[in-house]
């Protein structure tokens, strides 16, 4: 049995004369069966979009797609921020760049390209770090769309936007739309800061890879990755072949590769290659154009729906979309709930199990691996400051505490505060629960 189809002549959709935005207007000027109450199809409502300011964070694989999509969704005022320059390995997916652009600023090249291609759109590039901009800068935008590959940058912008919210001023609430990909998989999510689950609330969904113990690297390597990590962490420190390690300098990677290969030969380990070395050292995540296209378009579709109310957007109920194309196609959308003990948008302390026989240094190290913390440079205070990463004078003053046992510094049930300025206004409130008995302030034994 064949399907019901209608047949007519040559096929081209109807369009109003000379209107570039005919197809957009089909949905902007007409409600559909699912359109909500707030939808307004008037000329004025549609032209409001001309003045909406969108900030795109990241001009990489997702960023290039996002800029293209926003420009073709009717947004006219777009800013893009990215501190990176173009590398040859970007060209397999970052389609706004050509071989001749290698070495130039991503933000600038991307902005120029889309402005030239799509008439009437203004794209302002910012070739700098997101941390270089202040609250006033972020305050000017209506929507923020992120295409980032760094958890730290996501956490920083998230905490900045949560702190920007002023209950007296409804414009201070900036919807944050975030995308991420890895290989054939990806996710997109919408955050209404202070109202719905934020990036920090969701941090434990993206657990960091467990670090290989140092003693494995130093004495009993088994995998090619162990040899690379050894070259990266131990051999480089010992030999200092160049003043500072630059992950993007092929000469530096080659040095590490040679070291790792020699070590692998010593231990009869197979599989050390240049590609593996680079992958481990730079923590490379596989990336392809098609997955970026899916995730970026999903983010921009949400931005479009938030701006136009043409159809219900993600955010207030379902706020997280997961996609994988490894085995067939699978995607699901769900609501991630806001956490009362979120260090950014909540205010309750969360319990933390602490071994009182750990030194403060060991406790700090453990915070890097906890999925819900992932803090690399935390400062810690209890009823007094226990350790501060900066300024240097305070660091020096508090450094002696690092070798003291936790049991000496805090009591069972005490509340401690953990901050990390590199992540913005992230402030962890922890209630200490001792995991075992404190054996007293004895000299630390050498473990392993």
């Amino acid at each position, binding site marked *: 049995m064949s399907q019901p189809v209608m047949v007519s002549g040559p*096929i081209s959709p109807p369009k109003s004369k000379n209107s570039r935005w005919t197809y957009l207007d089909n949905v902007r000027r007409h409600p559909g069966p699912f359109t909500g109450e707030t939808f307004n199809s008037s000329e004025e409502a549609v032209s409001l979009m001309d003045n909406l300011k969108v900030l795109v964070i990241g001009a990489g694989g997702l960023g290039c797609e996002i800029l293209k999509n926003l420009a073709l969704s009717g947004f006219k005022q777009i800013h893009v921020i990215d501190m990176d320059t173009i590398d040859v390995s970007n060209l397999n997916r970052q389609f706004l760049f050509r071989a001749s652009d290698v070495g130039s600023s991503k933000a600038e090249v991307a902005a120029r390209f889309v402005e030239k291609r799509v008439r009437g759109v203004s794209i302002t590039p910012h070739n700098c770090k997101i941390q270089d901009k202040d609250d006033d800068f972020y305050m000017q935008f209506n929507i923020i769309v992120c295409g980032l590959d760094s958890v730290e940058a996501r956490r920083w912008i998230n905490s900045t936007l949560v702190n920007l919210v002023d209950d007296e001023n409804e414009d201070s609430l900036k919807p944050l739309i975030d995308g991420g990909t890895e290989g054939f998989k990806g996710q997109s999510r919408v955050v209404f800061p202070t109202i719905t689950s934020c990036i920090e609330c969701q941090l434990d969904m993206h657990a960091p890879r467990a670090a290989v113990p140092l003693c494995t690297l130093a004495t009993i390597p088994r995998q090619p990755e162990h040899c690379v990590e050894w070259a990266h962490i131990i051999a480089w420190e010992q030999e200092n072949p160049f003043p500072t390690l630059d992950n993007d300098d092929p000469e530096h990677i080659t040095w590490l590769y040679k070291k790792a290969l020699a070590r692998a030969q010593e231990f009869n380990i197979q599989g050390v290659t240049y590609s593996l070395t680079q992958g481990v050292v730079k923590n490379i995540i596989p990336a392809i154009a*098609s997955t970026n296209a899916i995730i970026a378009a999903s983010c921009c579709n949400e931005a*479009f729906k938030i701006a136009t109310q043409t159809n219900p957007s993600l955010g207030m109920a379902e706020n997280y979309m997961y996609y994988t194309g490894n085995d067939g196609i699978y995607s*699901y959308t769900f609501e991630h709930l806001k956490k009362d003990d979120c260090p950014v948008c909540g205010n309750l302390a969360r319990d933390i199990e602490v071994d009182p026989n750990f030194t403060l240094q060991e406790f700090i190290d453990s915070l890097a691996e906890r999925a819900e913390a992932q803090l690399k440079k935390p400062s810690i205070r209890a009823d007094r400051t226990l350790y501060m990463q900066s300024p240097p004078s305070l660091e020096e003053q508090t450094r002696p505490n690092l070798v003291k046992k936790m049991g000496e510094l805090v009591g069972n049930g005490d509340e401690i505060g953990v901050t990390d300025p590199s992540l913005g206004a992230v402030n962890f409130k922890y209630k200490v629960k001792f995991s075992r008995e404190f054996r007293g302030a004895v000299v630390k034994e050498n473990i392993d």
Partner: protein
Amino acid sequence: MTDIIIDQTPPILHNPSDKEKKYDRQLRLWAASGQQALEDAHILLLNSGSGAVGIETLKNLVLPGIGKFTIADEAIVDEADLGVNFFLEESSLGKLRSECCTKLLQELNPDVKGDWFPHEQGETLEHLFGSEQRFTLIMYTLPIEPKKVDLIHKHASKHKIPVISIHSAGFYSYFRIRLPGNFPIVETHPDSTATTDLRLLTPWPELLQFTESLTENIENQSALEHGHIPYVALLLHYLGKWKDIHGSLPATYKEKTAFRDTVAAGARRDNPEGGEENFDEAVAAVLKTTSLPTLPSSVKEVFDYSPSDVRIGTQITREPMLMDYQNQMEASSSFWIIAGAVKQFYTKHGALPLAGSVPDMKAQSTVYVKLQNIYKAKARQDAAEVLKIVRTHPSGKDIPEAEVETFCKNAAFIKVIRGTDTAPLNIQDIANKEFDSDENAALASMPLSLFPIYISLNATSHVAFASSSDILTAISKSIPNAASNSRLVQAAEEVARAKGGELHNISALTGGMAAQEVIKIITKQYIPIDNTCVFDELLDLEAVMRRILEMKGRESYIGGGVAGPDILRSTASA
């Protein structure tokens, strides 16, 4: 010829080539073999309608470096094109759309060849398909004239070319894949958490000797030795002791947890750490290593199927001679010959060939490498046995050894996406089933069927646009009560709202999904969606519906505009 001095140290370095640098991020997914397949591919796009979704799909294929693409499209670029298609510019207005898009797509990657069609006025699709060039895969976008669809499917079925059709309008889209016959995949890239069979219940002599050498006198070993016995050896040691006491290996869940306690009790706890990492690893591995692996269902499906005795249903009536010939061709392909050999191996040994990899575990370097070599040697031995069977097949003598080895390494994860041989289902039946299951889905907060979107979009397959009442009238020809079904009415209204025009975001999203599928089909890696209509150029719902029916909650249709509870219902909340 120059003299080459081979020196053991320093080792020979392989620095990346320019191509490896450019494609680094994707070679990590599909390796050089997948890249070669892409570079050998020539993809034809028949572009139609508002024309963006096909170009977005191609963009995602030009970037990773397909060999060549051809765009067939007679449309002339107008203002509306510039509002939806990124690969057109102001100067394209009034020119041939296929030519303009080809040129701007080609800019993305100088390694890719691009061509357009028609070059001259009056050239028809018959000319294109009549030429010598062969396409690896054909994509076409909807709406499109039915006679073109006919031509595409005739050509594709004659030359066994996969076809993907894509329809994007407003907030909705779908695409369909038609593979020319069964589609076997060896390199499915299972998740890293997929378990590797370590054969601890059926160890071979070398593995047992290795265990004995490490666990002899285990009570009196130094802390260093005891704490570094790899968990494979620990488990084998304690399994041996268990068998000595109980006469058989732990089989029930209760026995296995008791066994786990025995292993845990073996750890020394009088050290600063209060335990031993290798014993922790052993304890954690007990349950997954003490069950005999069952044959995965996808492998069983391969074993149960033999291409030479495929049941031929109603579809054979079209070209019976061709069908027989193709079955023979398929039966003599290397995949089915190796699959047959692996099946024989399995029947004889009760196990698939060993994959040969060993997960990382706490151990001294030399001991771990030794363990790896024991597994590798066994895997090679298994593969050699399979190769021997392969060589006895009349067409098996030319199959490369490496192909057999790759097959054996992946044996537990091979998969065939099969063609269907049953008659097409009745749309009314599908509709009833879909709407019935929706009633249950609503109660269980399961996703609702996307069938209304598909059927509504599909009603506009050959027209520029249609009103919702036109769409419902068309649907009512096969679903008599269509106009009284609220979900059908809503879907028809949403489709009508778009007036046949695409939204760039939805087309970019759909183009990304379709490109992923094209890559999987061309590289024969990862698993494409299961949508297998064999030699069926008629617009046949059955295959598509099978997907909807079997994979509830999986989304081959985008309800991009309506992420709310109506279309994409969540199945989980965190």
